[in-house]
């Protein structure tokens, strides 16, 4: 009996200390990781969907409340505004949809009048050579000049219908977010 208590106590203490240490490291690295993620994952896509701006969309980014997740925590969406001479040209925001093999993250550029400047696939884990073709310009370029009211009336990639649906869902999510928050979003971006 004494053995069992000792085992439980020692293992419990080790786990407790480990948990505290991990929580500490997590706190310290939270911000650098967020920065790296924006710089390495989002920045190339932001630059791909926005053009002709003279500000720094990454520096001028702002967050918008985007409802709550399943656990009831607040979720925010990061918006990247592109301006020229202080005038808002377009905003870039991301959406996510379920692809063939996990989530597909898509950055969508939208002009103030609701026209889209284009999309760029940020992340996906679909089959290389099949699902991955949704990241090719032949497919993504079709979204240029579509509007947020009808964002996905384009040809899908044959043989990759799950991946195509994932991208559609992601683009629709971004468009829906834009439409339902348009006033607030443009007001914030215009500053």
């Amino acid at each position, binding site marked *: 009996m004494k053995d069992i208590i000792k*085992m439980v106590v020692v293992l419990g203490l*080790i786990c407790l200390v*480990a948990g505290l240490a991990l929580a500490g*490291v997590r706190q310290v690295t939270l911000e*650098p990781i967020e920065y*790296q993620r924006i710089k390495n994952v989002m920045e190339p896509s932001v630059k791909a969907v926005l053009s002709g701006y003279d500000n720094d969309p990454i520096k001028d980014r702002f967050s918008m409340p985007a409802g709550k997740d399943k656990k009831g925590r607040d979720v925010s969406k990061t918006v990247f505004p592109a301006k020229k001479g202080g005038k808002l040209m377009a905003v870039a925001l991301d959406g996510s949809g379920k692809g063939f093999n996990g989530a597909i993250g898509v950055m969508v550029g939208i002009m103030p009048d609701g026209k889209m400047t284009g999309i760029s696939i940020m992340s996906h884990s679909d089959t290389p050579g099949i699902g991955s073709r949704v990241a090719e310009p032949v497919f993504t370029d079709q979204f240029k000049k579509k509007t947020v009211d009808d964002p996905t009336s384009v040809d899908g990639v044959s043989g990759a219908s799950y991946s195509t649906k994932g991208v559609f869902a992601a683009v629709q999510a971004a468009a829906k977010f834009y439409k339902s928050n348009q006033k607030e979003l443009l007001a914030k971006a215009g500053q």
Partner: protein
Amino acid sequence: MGLAQEFTKGLWKELPPFRLVLGLCPTLAVTTAAENGIGMGLATTFVLVCSNVLVSLLRKVIPGKVRIAAFIVIIASFVVIVELLMQAYFYSLYQVLGIFIPLIVVNCIILGRAEAFASKNGVMPSIMDGLGIGLGFTISLGFLGAFREILGGGTIFGHHIFWSGFEPMAFILKPPGAFVCLGLILGLMNIISSRKA
């Protein structure tokens, strides 16, 4: 054995991937370039030294029956710390190594050293043991990575070293190429050590 020997044994006699043929999963998977191999090796070394120190310090406190569970908790914590730090400060390396960072938890070298060495020895020998084995692992992965990068990509640390018409053997960078290269190196090391004996 003295402290120096605890250190040097990891460099030849107990060189993990090539002499003990341990830890082959990362050895085969991430060595497509010298830089990746060295990054993986250093991450593993950090975890190995830290876990050796803690296991050695706690060796009299941890009851024998739950020692493996305790070791795994210690190792896994350090792996998560490495993963977070790498994500925060070496993001491009993190993207390349990806899933193989969390898999350091089940790297048999680390659990093996905790069980076979650190749980029976003091802190200083355990540090030397961890450093030696870790350095040996890093050098092995770096060497295998450089070997594959040169033959398979015609580059070393990203710099081109061959003439412009050089056609790299892309096969070497694929998984079967990893086995071929590992086999060649193992054979070479066997020849050298049998000459020595």
